[in-house]
């Protein structure tokens, strides 16, 4: 059984049919890339999984349990955690407080302490700035904080929405290194990206969304070689 399975999702914004029957699955231990242009429905898909949006039809299942109608905070408790697009850190809270908020649902102080150390090892910059108000961080640091904050929930599936957005190339490399490291430590990742080149380098498999539908899917190396993907997303 797939760890996370989306089946025939139909999501509307008012009358706009944003997802038209999206189906995909993520196996335990994988990094799965979800590619597509602006407005293809990538963020809509993640927000539906996180429970912020309710589909009109279809299902989202975590190890077979339906997540539709489960409120967002309970979905986090079950181990599906999102790093939202645009980072959405709490700018007036300190770095440490942001990380504490990530651990909001946790009831094991010892485990939380371990995870805090893990996040600080992954992103030493956050440790240096633990007491600083998060709004004063640079863009790259904010992205690290957003990822670290999500890790504090000890997710089984990490949903990442455009983690490379607006970052300098060197920082993009760092973030993608971190994504691979997180995955090596045992977290399954569903990665939404516009930077298809980077995403397909770290991912095991990928899906391509176009106007609310999955138009292509397959192993990452296969997608990298696909002429359509090359033309549309890889600039070649």
């Amino acid at each position, binding site marked *: 059984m797939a760890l996370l399975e989306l089946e025939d999702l139909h999501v509307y914004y008012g009358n706009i049919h944003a997802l038209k029957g999206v189906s995909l699955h993520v196996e335990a231990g994988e990094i799965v890339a979800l590619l597509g242009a602006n407005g293809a429905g990538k963020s809509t898909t993640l927000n539906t999984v*996180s*429970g*912020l949006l309710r589909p009109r039809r279809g299902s989202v299942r975590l190890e077979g349990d339906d997540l539709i109608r489960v*409120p*967002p*905070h309970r979905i*986090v*408790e079950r181990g599906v*955690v*999102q790093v*939202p697009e645009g980072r*959405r*850190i*709490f*700018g*007036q*809270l300190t770095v440490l*407080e942001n990380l*504490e*908020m*990530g651990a*909001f*649902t946790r009831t094991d102080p010892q485990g939380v302490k371990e995870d805090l150390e893990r996040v600080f090892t992954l992103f030493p910059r956050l440790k240096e700035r633990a007491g600083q108000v998060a709004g004063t961080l640079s863009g790259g640091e904010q992205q690290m904080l957003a990822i670290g*904050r*999500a890790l504090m*929930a000890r997710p089984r599936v990490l949903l990442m929405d455009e983690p490379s957005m607006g970052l300098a190339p060197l920082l993009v490399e760092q973030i993608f290194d971190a994504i691979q490291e997180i995955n090596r430590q045992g977290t399954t990742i569903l990665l939404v990206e516009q930077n298809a080149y980077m995403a397909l380098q770290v991912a095991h498999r990928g899906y391509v969304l176009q106007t609310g539908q999955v138009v292509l899917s397959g192993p990452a190396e296969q997608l990298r070689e696909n002429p359509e993907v090359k033309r549309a997303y890889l600039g070649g």
Partner: protein
Amino acid sequence: MGSVAAGAVRHPVVRRLSFVDAFLWAFRLAVVLVVVWGTVGTLRLGRYTGEQWVDFVVFGLAQGGIYALIALGYTMVYGILRMINFAHGEVFMSGAYTAYFVAAPLAASGFLNRHPILSLLLLVAVAAVVSTGVAVLVERVAYRPLRRAPRLVPLITAIGASFFLQYAFRGLYGSGFKAYPEFELFKGEWQVLGIGILRTQAVVLASAAVLMFALYQFVMRTKVGKAMRAVSEDKDAAALMGIDVDRIIVLTFAVGGAAAGAAGILYALVFKQVHFFMGFVPGIKAFTSAVLGGIGNIPGAMLGGLFLGVVESVGPALFLDGLGIVAPYQLKDVIAFTMLVMVLIFRPQGILGERLAAKRA
């Protein structure tokens, strides 16, 4: 379009000084003139002794502490929902009024004066519980169903809830003033540094300070307090972190309600009576305090409350007496609301806060 813009560039000074600007400058000037003239006049008359001024300030601080406690409820709810809970004055009233029915038998049996501190704590607890209950109920019935409605809609239901509560409590408890029993312990004065301070005011000021400190620590240090700040910044991101946003909103109303309930007992200590309409004026004054300090900002609400209390208490004697106004103290509300209008016009973000209109919804 182009020619208008060009005109603006050619005569910037002339275009800037519109009629409205001129009026606003005149308004500022008039206020400054009244204040300076009145102050000079009062000080030349020398009608008040130093001790009286200290009395004014202490009374102002005590009164301001009460405003500040109520203002916390306005500012916290605004911070989290970007709405003004205009029923908050009634939340304040409901606790104090209900606690009267505990205070009266306590006084009649003599328990009140045998164990004054215990009685005071009991009354505060009763008022806080009732006010919390009313605040949570109002949120559930009048605001939560409208969470996604345009912002004007919950404002209208807030006013509706306010009237509903006033007349519900009038129906429940009657329309007359009820005289709150007095504590023998709090009559008279304490000597502090050679200055006599009314005991009631000292108790009120100290209680308000303790409660504000506790509340601030709660918001800054506890997990729930941090979650409140997180939700007030970004509800969706908070939900994505596993925070139950609805629960945090209810808790915010509850904490604000508890502070208002405690403030109600302090108010009853100072003014010694309760009434179904007693929440209206302190409610608006507290709202003024919250705006003054910067709405959404917790230290701002505390500062705004104390500031308003002191200006209202010192102002009539200081600014108005010197102008030859008879019974200037009756004009203290004029001072308070002139300040509200001036803050909204000249510094809408308040002393410490962000701009009211610019805050993201």
